[in-house]
């Protein structure tokens, strides 16, 4: 007789606890038990080995084998079956200590196993376990209340980095949002990862190639990045390149594990990197180390600018016809051959969508034109005779502010080192700048990226294999959007998390408190102007009523986390978290829905630098009552439909960006499942495979067996063919001479938008980072070796590889001045707040700075206060990043949006009492 556990429990209740297992002695008949050693005589076997990976935002996408026995994952192992692509080292094996630990972590105490409802105050940690039906019904009722009384726009469904990388999961969110009309605050700009300077210059943020492209570089500058610790599966490409002769130069204020392995380490003072870049540009210009042919064809450096208005010379300056046809946007250059002004090739035809027509019809081919880079001329215009010069000339003038000597005073880097580095980089064909997302997290990070791109343009490196700016790329993800929009068309709202915060979390008041009224009012004025001009969307007219957070630990990573929790969360009437693990965001939620972890779900991963589509398989059933994101959203959709019918809610007319959408909430489930055609995450994954460009057409079952499959169009280490699923616009401009998707149709280093002129940022330049008066220490943070954001940060084994608790690096001199020794608890503070952490005294840290690896949850700190207490930058929205009505500048989701900044503040520390 075989009794299962549930029957045992029921049986024992009803039969008075008689012996339930009366025939259970068969197992030991042949192997008598005489001691616990006998348990270990039998070889341990696996029920199955399953392909899988970790659907988190480490960009690793590492193929793993997951070992399962008796419904439990016991271990994992790197799959390691990557073929060699071309003449570069291969991508395998891939993995790191965090992934190798997940079989333990997934059963850890932090797991959320059941739907929870808050019974105490928010953040108090008092919960009631409730059923899925109760949870989704109550959520659905609140959802319907807000959607019908106000508008669905007042409900936001924020995805996080853990969610967005799993294709089927993100597609599910997108579909639910599209059907219901709720607002999706995207995280790319929200976490400060959006390279807006790249977009300003190239019209693209997706410029990165495969990781193997590093091997093809002759000089790679690893700038504000620490791949030895944060890109463990791929860091080998840097060291293999170094052994192959590539100059590997690390640029970071602190001595990182990456700097340790590099040929050269430059350590500018925190936040002065743009001065360093501009100085290297100055050396290249002065010593004529630039590739003239490249910049004449590919950049705006030869374009003519009026010296009186600081604006480009355009056709409307020259003729009444041009004045009427402003949209033509014809730009000019000076031709050496004819000694006359000529229209720049590739300009004109800039009707919206900006630049796209130009890409279709125009060309950057210079033909017989030989653009002059230097000179000044007098031109007859409708305003009379005006002087014009080239962007190149203006750049030279600007660079005189950054001679190596002057830059050294700003950065602390020796003039000799600056000159030497500039020459090495200019000599490389090609040169690469591998920049971390930290380069986006400064208020003036855009200026740094523009300066980096200038270095790359002068050396002709952008768009070359082994060259260019490597920050971000992303799949085109057509399958995801098609899944989201199928049957209903695009009808949803997408904004930046940064603006969501600004609208909702009293960030202007915070700016006033920290940076003073003048800055706060100024930034606010530009913010409002951008919204009024409709350059950027605003869905906050009714205020935010309900916040849903999926795979999103926003209350941890948000700048000014505690202020954000107090302001944003207190004003939200209902907060729902979908999460696998307990953290500060679920902790402050009203409802928490348990979500399956990496080995408990079917999904897909396709990351930017690894040319493989990777599967996540449901190796074991989701623990407890957790479900995957598709299923969680399906249950919410079901409850919305059911309650809409029960409450007799009529369809609403929902105005979205000028269109009216009919929302019939009774049909939410039907629409979500495409009339029952899509029933689980496997179906979603298959849809995405079928609909995505550049992804091999393979069944999910076959992919499950294989683990990963190479994407199409990978002929070398670049994303440079239309067959690949990745963006390759920049390469097309370089190779096929198609105009860039910028206002000038070129790599645009000069921006004559009125706000850029007003702020003195027409050209790349350096601006001092903000500081808080009276606080001398600049606190830097970075991704950690032993966690991916907040995930795995609290794992006991991984903690044992560190100091066991949050630690913060301090310079020995700073420590001594404050009577602090290694291991002391120190209090870090400024006008925003304070937190405490263990002092990690290290000579690898510059005097005047603190460094802390990020991701630690507040619950790991004294008084539940983490580093975000002292980071008051959540409201520092750079005005120029919300500029619009200027060709390519204007809101572009996931391309041009204001970054949340994290760096522009100072603090101090003392030994904790």
């Amino acid at each position: 007789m075989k009794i299962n556990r549930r029957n045992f429990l029921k049986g024992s209740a009803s039969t008075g606890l008689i012996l339930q297992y009366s025939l259970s002695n068969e197992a030991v008949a042949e192997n008598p038990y005489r001691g616990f050693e006998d348990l270990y005589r039998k070889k341990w076997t696996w029920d199955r080995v399953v392909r899988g990976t970790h659907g988190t935002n480490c960009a690793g996408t590492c193929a793993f084998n997951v070992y399962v026995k008796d419904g439990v994952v016991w271990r994992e192992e790197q799959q390691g079956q990557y073929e060699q692509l071309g003449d570069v080292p291969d991508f395998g094996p891939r993995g790191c200590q965090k992934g190798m630990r997940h079989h333990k972590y997934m059963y850890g105490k932090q797991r959320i196993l059941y739907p929870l409802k808050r019974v105490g105050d928010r953040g108090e940690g008092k919960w009631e376990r409730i059923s899925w039906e109760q949870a989704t019904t109550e959520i659905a009722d609140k959802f319907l209340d807000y959607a019908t009384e106000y508008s669905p726009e007042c409900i936001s469904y924020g995805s996080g980095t853990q969610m967005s990388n799993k294709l089927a999961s993100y597609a599910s969110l997108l579909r639910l949002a599209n059907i219901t009309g709720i607002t999706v605050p995207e995280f790319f700009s929200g976490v400060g990862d959006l390279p807006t300077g790249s977009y300003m210059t190239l019209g693209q943020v997706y410029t990165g190639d495969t990781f193997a492209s590093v091997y093809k570089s002759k000089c790679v500058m690893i700038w504000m990045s620490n791949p030895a610790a944060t890109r463990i599966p791929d860091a080998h490409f840097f060291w293999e390149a170094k052994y192959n002769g590539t100059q590997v130069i690390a640029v970071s204020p602190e001595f990182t594990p990456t700097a340790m392995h590099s040929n050269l380490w430059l350590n500018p003072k925190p936040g002065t990197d743009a001065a360093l870049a501009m100085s290297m540009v100055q050396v290249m210009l002065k010593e004529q180390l630039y590739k003239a042919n490249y910049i004449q064809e590919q950049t705006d450096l030869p374009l003519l600018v009026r010296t009186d208005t600081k604006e480009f010379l355009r056709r409307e300056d020259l003729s009444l016809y041009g004045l009427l046809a402003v949209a033509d946007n014809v730009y000019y250059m000076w031709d050496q051959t004819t000694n006359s002004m000529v229209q720049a090739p590739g300009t004109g035809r800039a009707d919206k969508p900006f630049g796209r027509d130009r890409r279709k019809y125009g060309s950057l081919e210079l033909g017989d034109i030989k653009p002059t880079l230097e000179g000044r001329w007098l031109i007859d215009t409708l305003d009379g005779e005006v002087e014009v010069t080239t962007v190149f000339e203006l750049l030279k003038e600007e660079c005189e502010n950054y001679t190596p000597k002057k830059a050294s005073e700003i950065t602390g880097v020796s003039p000799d080192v600056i000159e030497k580095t500039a020459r090495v980089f200019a000599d490389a064909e090609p040169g690469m700048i591998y920049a971390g997302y930290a380069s986006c997290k400064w208020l003036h990070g855009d200026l740094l990226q523009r300066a980096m791109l200038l270095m790359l343009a002068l050396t002709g490196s952008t768009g070359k294999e082994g060259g260019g700016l490597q920050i971000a790329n992303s799949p085109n993800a057509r399958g995801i959007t098609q899944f989201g929009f199928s049957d209903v068309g695009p009808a949803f709202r997408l904004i930046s998390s940064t603006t969501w915060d600004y609208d909702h979390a009293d960030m202007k008041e915070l700016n006033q408190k920290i940076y003073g009224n003048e800055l706060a009012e100024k930034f606010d004025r530009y913010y409002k102007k951008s919204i009024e001009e409709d350059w950027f969307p605003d869905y906050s007219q009714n205020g935010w009523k309900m916040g849903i957070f999926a795979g999103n630990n926003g209350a941890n990573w948000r700048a000014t986390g505690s202020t954000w929790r107090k302001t944003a969360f207190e004003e939200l009437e209902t907060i729902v978290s979908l999460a696998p693990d307990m953290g500060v965001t679920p902790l402050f939620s009203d409802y928490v829905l348990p979500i399956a972890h990496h080995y408990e779900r079917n999904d897909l991963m396709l990351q930017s630098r690894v040319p493989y589509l990777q599967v996540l398989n449901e190796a074991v059933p989701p623990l407890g009552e957790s479900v995957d994101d598709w299923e969680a959203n399906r249950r919410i959709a079901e409850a919305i439909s059911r309650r809409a019918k029960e409450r007799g809610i009529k369809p609403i007319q929902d105005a979205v960006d000028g269109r009216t959408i009919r929302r019939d909430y009774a049909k939410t489930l039907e629409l979500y499942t495409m009339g029952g055609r899509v029933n689980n995450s496997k179906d979603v994954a298959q849809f995405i495979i079928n609909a995505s460009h550049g992804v091999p057409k393979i069944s999910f079952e076959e992919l499950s067996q294989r683990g990963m499959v190479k994407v199409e169009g990978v002929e070398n280490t670049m994303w440079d063919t239309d067959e690949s699923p990745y963006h390759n616009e920049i390469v097309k401009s370089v190779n096929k001479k198609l105009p860039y998707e910028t206002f000038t149709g070129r790599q645009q280093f000069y921006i004559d938008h009125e706000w850029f002129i007003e702020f003195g940022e027409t050209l790349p330049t350096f601006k001092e980072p903000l500081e808080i008066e009276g606080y001398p220490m600049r606190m830097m943070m970075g991704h950690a070796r032993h966690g991916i954001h907040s995930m795995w940060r609290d794992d006991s084994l991984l903690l044992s590889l560190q100091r066991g608790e949050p630690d913060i690096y301090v310079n020995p001199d700073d420590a001594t001045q404050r009577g602090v020794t290694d291991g002391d608890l120190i209090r870090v503070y400024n006008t925003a707040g304070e937190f405490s952490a263990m002092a990690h005294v290290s000579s690898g840290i510059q005097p005047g700075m603190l460094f802390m690896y990020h991701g630690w949850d507040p619950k790991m700190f004294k008084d539940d206060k983490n580093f975000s207490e002292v980071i008051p930058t959540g409201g520092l929205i750079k005005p120029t990043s919300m500029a619009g009505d200027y060709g390519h500048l204007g809101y572009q989701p996931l391309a041009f949006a204001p970054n949340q900044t994290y760096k522009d503040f100072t603090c101090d520390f003392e030994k904790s009492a």
Partner: protein
Amino acid sequence: MERAVISIKRDAEVTSPTRAAAYALFSQLMASPHEIKSFNIKTEISFECLPYDFDIKDILDQCLAIDDADLKQQYSALFEVGDEGPPAPIREDLFLAQPAKLREDLVRFYEYFGYQLNEEFQWQMDHLSIELEFMHFLIAGEFGADDDKLSFQLGQFDFIEKHLNNWVPQLSEKLIILDHGDIYTKIVIELSKFLLHDFNWQKESISQIDVAGG
């Protein structure tokens, strides 16, 4: 090395049904009330046949008087939810901070004796309720075995020593410190006493002699 056993005082025919019932009762009491209405228990169980002095009738009576919703709330608050994990994890592996090999040891025990969990419970093979159920299973094995009662007797002894007694007393102490004033603290305190009684009785009823040739 092999252990031989003289079970002169064991009298399994008499002690096993009641001991098994006691373990089953505790298994049920420690199961999540969200999964089963656990206190729907017939209280006519007599513990008089236990080979040691033990009775939990008072606790059982208190259990039966508690509203189901309260029971669920108490259970979840202690064992299932919390901002840093549940205050008192109800799973051995979690309670002991995930030591290496612990779960493997459990699975090897279960596999060796032929105890199988159905799929939905497999991931929590270290749940207190399941460990207690396994003890019930072993006692039933001892009762039903014609030739080799020894295997089940030693299995019980080793399992309680290596697992239940390795953490239930600590769980009891933890609950006392937490002082939620709930029924489960009382149950675990009684369970801890019961395990000690049963373990001591097993020591008395199993004489261990090392013999060569194992």
